[in-house]
C-alpha cells in the first residue's frame, strides 16, 4: 500500500517537469519551423524586391521620318545599300523634334544618341528590311531606351544605383517622360531574346530553350535506364556479393559532388568521343550520369513498397515473373518512380558546376535550334549576369532567378499532381 502511494507521489511530483519538458520540446519545433520560414521569406522578399523591376523595360516612342535622303538609302530592298545606310540619323532627328533645346553640336548629338539602346539603329534597319515600303514615310515606332536611361527611370534616388546620365540627359529624360515619349512597359524582351551585353536587350529565351533541351536529353536517357536498372536489381538480380557491391556504389555515386561528373563528361564525351563543347546533348549526358543514382534509389524504394501480397497473388494465378513486374509491380511503383525522377530532374535543372567544364558557361546570343547547337542553361545565365558590371543586370539576374524558381515550382507541382493521380491505396 505504502509502495503504491509513494509511486503515485513520484509520478505526481515528476508530472510538472514532464509537462514542462514537452512544452519546451514543442517550442523548439516551432522555433525551427520559424527560422526556416524566416529564411525563405527573406530570400523571396530580397529576390522579388530587387528583381520585379527586371520585368519592366523602358521604351522610347518616336515619330520617325524615314527620309531616303537623310539615310542615304534609295532602295530598301537592296541588301548592300541597307548596310551602307545611316539608320541613326532619322532616330536622332526624331529625338531632336521632341527636345528642341538639343543643339547639333557633337557633344549634344552623342548625348542624344546615348538615350537610345545601342541597337536601336539595327532594329530600325530590320524593320525597313522586312518592309521596304516604309521608306519615305513617317512612322510612329517604339524603341528600347539605353540601359542608363532604364536605370535612371526605375532607380533614380536609390543609393545602390549610380546614375550615369549627365544632368542634361536627366533633364531630357524627365521632359520625355512628361510627354509620354519615355514609358515603362512589361519587359517582353526578357522572354524572347537571348543573352546580350546590353541589359536592356538581354533575355533568358536562349537559356530557357537550352535548359529544356538539356532536360529533354536527361529525361529520355536517365528515366528508362534508371527504372530498368532498379527493376533488374530489385526483381531479378541474384543476391550475391556482386549485386551488393553495385548497390553500395550506386549509393556512393548519389553523394559524389556534381563537378566530378563534369570532369568525367569532359574526359569521355568531349576528349575521347570528340563531341563539340557547349552543346545541350553533352550537357544532358553529363546530367544523366548525375541524376541516375537518384532515380535508381527512388525507383528501388518505390518497387520495395509494393506489398508482397500483390506479387504473390499474381504468381499464384500463374503469371510469369515478367508479367508480374510489367502488369502489377511497375504500375503500382510508377508514382514513386516519377516523383524520384522529377526531383532528380529539378536538381539537374539547377546545376551549373558540371556544365562549366563542358563549356556551357558561355556567352551565347543566338537561341539554340537543336541538341547540337551551342547553348547555355538558366542557372548559368544567372551566374553570368550576376558577375557583369552593368547595373541593369542586377535586377535582370533576380528576374531570371524568379523564372528559374517558377520552373522548379512547376516541376515539383507536376510531381505532386502525378503522385496524387497515379497513387493507389490498398
Amino acid at each position: 500500500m505504502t509502495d503504491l502511494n509513494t509511486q503515485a507521489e513520484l509520478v505526481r511530483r515528476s508530472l510538472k517537469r514532464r509537462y514542462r519538458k514537452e512544452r519546451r520540446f514543442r517550442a523548439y519545433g516551432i522555433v525551427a519551423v520559424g527560422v526556416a520560414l524566416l529564411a525563405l521569406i527573406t530570400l523571396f522578399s530580397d529576390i522579388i524586391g530587387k528583381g520585379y523591376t527586371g520585368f519592366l523595360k523602358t521604351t522610347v516612342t518616336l515619330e520617325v521620318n524615314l527620309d531616303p535622303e537623310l539615310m542615304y538609302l534609295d532602295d530598301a530592298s537592296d541588301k548592300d545599300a541597307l548596310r551602307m545606310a545611316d539608320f541613326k540619323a532619322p532616330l536622332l532627328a526624331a529625338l531632336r523634334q521632341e527636345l528642341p533645346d538639343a543643339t547639333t553640336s557633337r557633344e549634344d548629338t552623342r548625348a542624344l544618341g546615348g538615350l537610345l539602346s545601342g541597337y536601336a539603329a539595327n532594329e530600325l534597319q530590320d524593320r525597313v528590311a522586312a518592309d521596304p515600303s516604309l521608306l519615305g514615310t513617317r512612322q510612329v515606332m517604339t524603341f528600347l531606351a539605353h540601359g542608363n536611361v532604364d536605370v535612371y527611370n526605375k532607380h533614380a534616388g536609390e543609393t545602390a544605383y549610380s546614375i550615369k546620365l549627365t544632368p542634361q540627359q536627366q533633364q531630357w529624360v524627365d521632359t520625355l517622360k512628361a510627354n509620354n515619349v519615355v514609358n515603362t512597359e512589361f519587359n517582353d524582351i526578357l522572354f524572347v531574346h537571348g543573352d546580350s551585353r546590353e541589359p536592356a536587350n538581354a533575355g533568358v529565351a536562349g537559356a530557357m530553350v537550352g535548359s529544356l533541351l538539356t532536360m529533354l536529353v536527361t529525361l529520355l536517357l536517365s528515366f528508362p535506364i534508371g527504372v530498368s536498372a532498379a527493376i533488374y536489381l530489385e526483381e531479378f538480380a541474384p543476391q550475391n556479393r556482386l549485386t551488393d557491391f553495385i548497390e553500395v556504389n550506386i549509393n556512393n555515386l548519389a553523394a559524389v559532388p556534381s563537378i566530378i561528373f563534369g570532369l568525367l563528361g569532359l574526359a569521355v564525351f568531349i576528349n575521347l568521343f570528340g563531341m563539340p563543347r557547349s552543346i545541350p546533348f553533352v550537357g544532358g549526358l553529363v546530367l544523366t550520369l548525375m541524376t541516375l543514382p537518384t532515380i535508381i534509389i527512388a525507383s528501388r524504394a518505390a518497387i520495395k513498397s509494393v506489398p508482397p501480397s500483390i506479387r504473390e497473388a499474381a504468381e499464384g494465378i500463374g503469371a510469369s515473373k515478367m508479367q508480374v513486374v510489367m502488369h502489377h509491380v511497375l504500375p503500382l511503383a510508377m508514382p514513386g518512380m516519377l516523383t524520384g525522377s522529377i526531383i532528380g530532374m529539378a536538381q539537374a535543372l539547377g546545376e551549373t558546376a558540371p556544365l562549366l567544364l563542358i563549356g556551357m558557361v558561355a556567352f551565347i546570343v543566338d537561341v539554340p535550334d537543336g541538341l547540337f547547337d551551342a547553348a547555355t542553361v538558366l542557372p548559368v545565365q544567372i551566374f553570368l549576369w550576376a558577375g557583369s558590371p552593368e547595373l541593369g543586370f542586377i535586377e535582370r539576374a533576380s528576374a531570371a532567378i524568379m523564372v528559374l524558381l517558377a520552373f522548379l515550382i512547376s516541376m515539383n507541382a507536376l510531381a505532386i499532381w502525378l503522385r496524387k493521380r497515379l497513387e493507389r491505396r490498398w
Partner: protein
Amino acid sequence: MINLKTVFTSVALVGAMSAVATPTLARDTINVVGSSTVYPFATVVAERFGRNTDFPTPKLESTGSGGGLKLFCDGIGTQHPDITNASRRMKPSEFERCQRNGVTDIVEVKIGSDGIVLASSKQADNLDLSLQQIFLALAKEVPAADGSETLVANPYKNWSDVDSSLPNKPIRVMGPPPTSGTRDAFSELAMEGGCKTFPWIKAMKAQDKNAYRAVCHSIREDGAFVEAGENDNLIVQKLNSDAGSYGIFGYSFLEENSGTLQAATIGGKQPTIDNISNEVYPVARSLWFYVKKAHVGVVPGIAEYVTEFTRESTWGDNGYLVDVGLIPLARKARMQASQNAGNLVTMTGNEL
C-alpha cells in the same frame, strides 16, 4: 503501361543512334575562349559582329587566360577554339606547346589595357598610397620596423600604422581569390612592386626565387584582407554599405559605379584612362587576343571578326569598347596593331 516495353526500346534506340551519329560537326560559329577580364569587351564586339554581319554571333567562354591558351594550343581542327583572349601575354612555354601541337601560325593582337583599382565609397577617406605602403598594409609578412632585415608577421592594424600620413582607420580590404586573373595581376604589379622597394628582399630574387615569390605574393590572412569571391559586383555592394572598407577590382567596375565610388591614388597617380594607357598608373596590364590562322577560311567570319575588333569605331578613343571600360592603346600603336591584325601577321616566337 502496355506500351512500356516499346517506349523503352525506342528511347534506348534513339539514344544509341544519336550517340553514334554525333559527328565532329563542321562549325559555322566562331569559338572564342579565354580571360574573364577580356570577356566583357569581347562579348560586346561579338554581339555587334553578329548583329551587323550575316555571320552567326561568336560563342564566348570565359575560361581564364591560362585555361584559354591551353585549349587554344590543343591543336588544329574545328573541335578546338579559333581565338583565345588573355589578360597577359602568351608565355614562351605556351608558344612552344602550340608549335608542338601543330598550331604554328598565330596572330597576336594587343587590344588595350585594364587598370586595377583600390576603391572605396565616396563617404570614406580616400587613400593616397605608394606601392610600398600597399605591400606593408596587405602582405602576410613585412620587414621588421627596426630595419633589421628580418620578416615579422604583419603588425599593422590601422592605415596610420603603415604611414602617419594615412587615415587612422582600420585596414579592411576586399579582393578577389587567388584563382582570379585580377588577383594575379594585383600580386604581381602592386604587391611585388612594393616588395622590391626593399633592396634586401629584391636581392633574394637572385638567390631563391621561390622564397622571394612567397614573401612578395603572400597576402595576409588575419582578417584585414577578405577574399570576396570572383564576383566584383559583390565587392561594390559591400563598399556601398560599409564606408570603412576598400575593394580591389578592375577599372570597368569603377567606371560603371563612378557615381558612388572613388579610387585611391597609387604611386601619385589616379586611375584615369590617360594614366592607364600611358602606363604611368602602376597597377595596369595589357590585354590581348590570339587568332589561329589555320582556321581562317575554315570557320567563316574569323578575319571579319578581327577586323571588327580592330576598327577605330570599336577600340578607338571614341569607340564603343571605351563605353564599357576598355582603356585603348595609344593611337599610333593602335594603327600599327590594326594593320598587323588585318594582314594576319603571324608570330615568330622571338617577340615573347
